[in-house]
């Protein structure tokens, strides 16, 4: 198996022999079935939202702040890309094909499935103690020393030891909590704030953000933050051992458990 980084190691070498054997009674999965299912549904939805969202941005790659924003108003910033609309002044001499119809249909369909899946995950997470047990960092880990140690480990691109296959470290826990409880709610809120019917019922949803165009700009940046998370997440999974980590998220079993069976 090819590994990222300079370490070329055969499969299974990621488990140092010095790691104390885990008691055979540990029959529980690394990830519960509900976490695994909601993880992959969310993955599919997020990819669909990303592609369709990018297509919608291409139809007007200009961003604004406040309520008004169009070809006649000053921009906050422009993306240096061509557009799928002829009227948008992009500086390019050609117009891309319009993909907004299916993109909008897909965007909302994926959003609904993602939100319903997220609600299921939230209810499950609170009822089973998943957040408390698996995601809230231990007090000891939250000390500056613990945090610096974890950051240093990451900066040295050190491969995690076996504890990394059984549990999340403090940086992972903080990042997952940030994604679940801050970025996802924000991206839903800023998305809904662009719905003219939704804001007619809940005007504060858009006025608190500073207006429709502010909501759109924030939606774009929160989406970028989620994309950044996705990239770092996949790279970290690759560094930790793509096959074993992905297998754990599909079957629930870690490499160590597999070897014992």
């Amino acid at each position, binding site marked *: 198996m090819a590994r990222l980084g300079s370490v070329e190691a055969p499969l299974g070498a990621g488990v140092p022999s010095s790691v104390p054997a885990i008691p055979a009674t540990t029959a529980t999965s690394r990830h519960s079935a509900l976490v695994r299912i909601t993880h992959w549904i969310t993955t599919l939805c997020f990819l669909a939202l990303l592609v369709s969202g990018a297509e*919608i*941005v291409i*139809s*007007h790659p*200009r961003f604004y702040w406040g*309520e*008004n*924003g*169009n*070809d*006649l*108003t000053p921009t906050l910033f422009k993306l240096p890309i061509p557009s799928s*609309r*002829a*009227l948008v002044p992009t500086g390019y001499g050609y117009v891309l094909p319009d993909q*907004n*119809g*299916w993109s*909008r*249909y*897909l965007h*909302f*369909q*994926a*959003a*609904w*499935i993602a939100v319903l899946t997220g609600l299921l995950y939230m209810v499950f997470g609170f009822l089973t103690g998943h957040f408390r047990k698996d995601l809230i960092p231990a007090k000891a880990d939250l000390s500056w020393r613990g945090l610096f140690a974890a950051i240093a480990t990451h900066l040295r691109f050190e491969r995690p030891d076996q504890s990394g296959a059984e549990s999340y470290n403090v940086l992972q826990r903080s990042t997952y909590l940030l994604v679940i409880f801050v970025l996802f709610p924000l991206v839903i809120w800023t998305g*809904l704030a*662009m*719905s*003219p*019917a*939704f*804001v*007619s*019922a809940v*005007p504060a949803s*858009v*006025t608190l953000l500073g207006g*429709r*165009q502010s909501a*759109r700009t924030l939606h774009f940046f929160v989406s970028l933050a989620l994309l950044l998370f996705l990239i770092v997440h996949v790279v970290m999974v690759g560094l930790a051992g793509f096959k074993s980590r992905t297998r754990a998220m599909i079957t629930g079993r870690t490499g160590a458990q597999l070897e014992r069976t």
Partner: protein
Amino acid sequence: MTDLSRRKLIVTGLAATAAGVTGLAVTSRIAQEYGLVPPDHGGIYGLGETLNYASQRLLARHSLAREFPQSQISRPPFANEIPPLNDAFKRLQAGGFADWRLTVDGMVDRPASFSLSQLRSYPSRSQITQLACEEGWSYVAEWAGVPLSHILDVVGIHPQARYIVYFSIDPDWWDSIDMADAMHPQTFLAYGLNGNELPVGNGGPLRMRLPRQLGYKNVKFITHLTVTDNMKEFGSGLGSASPEGGYAWYAGI
């Protein structure tokens, strides 16, 4: 896995499936009854489209779109691309739109044809609302017009009416709304913009204006309204020209 837990699993699974199927059937009946199913509910994106429409009808059937102070008006008003104007339009434009007609037919007691001056003689309303395009841009403007509900009162719609279908002078451009939007106080047949006549670039002389849906439902150059209880008779039966072109019928989001 023991036999007992396997049996339990199968029984639970069957019960959940039965409950799910019954629940879906009941939900579907209720949704049809309360008008929560959009005409383009079929196909692979029907789920998302139906959830958008149903949830927003439940949440925002009567809510009012935000109105803004004069200071928020975007000047000059943005006029986006319009399709090439046909000869019929150009002829009417040459005559200063004096012969422009809005015909209203379908499920009405008194089919009628209105000139622009007749429409202007009805109580005029204005609103400073936002027009937001599905592409992402938006502008706030003051729109003047006659509420669509007023015209529907004049012609007397039948109680079984469910949709208002509206047609542009461009024969490929038509759309429809449900009665919640048709009777909504901010749904206008607009003929004025920022204190002037509605410019051609913004849909003049007559444009459908419904601020709780995105720009593309605000069809320009309106000449014809039909009241119906069934969208199947129009085009491909998907509610408007938009789903036929790949866009959702409902544009409240």
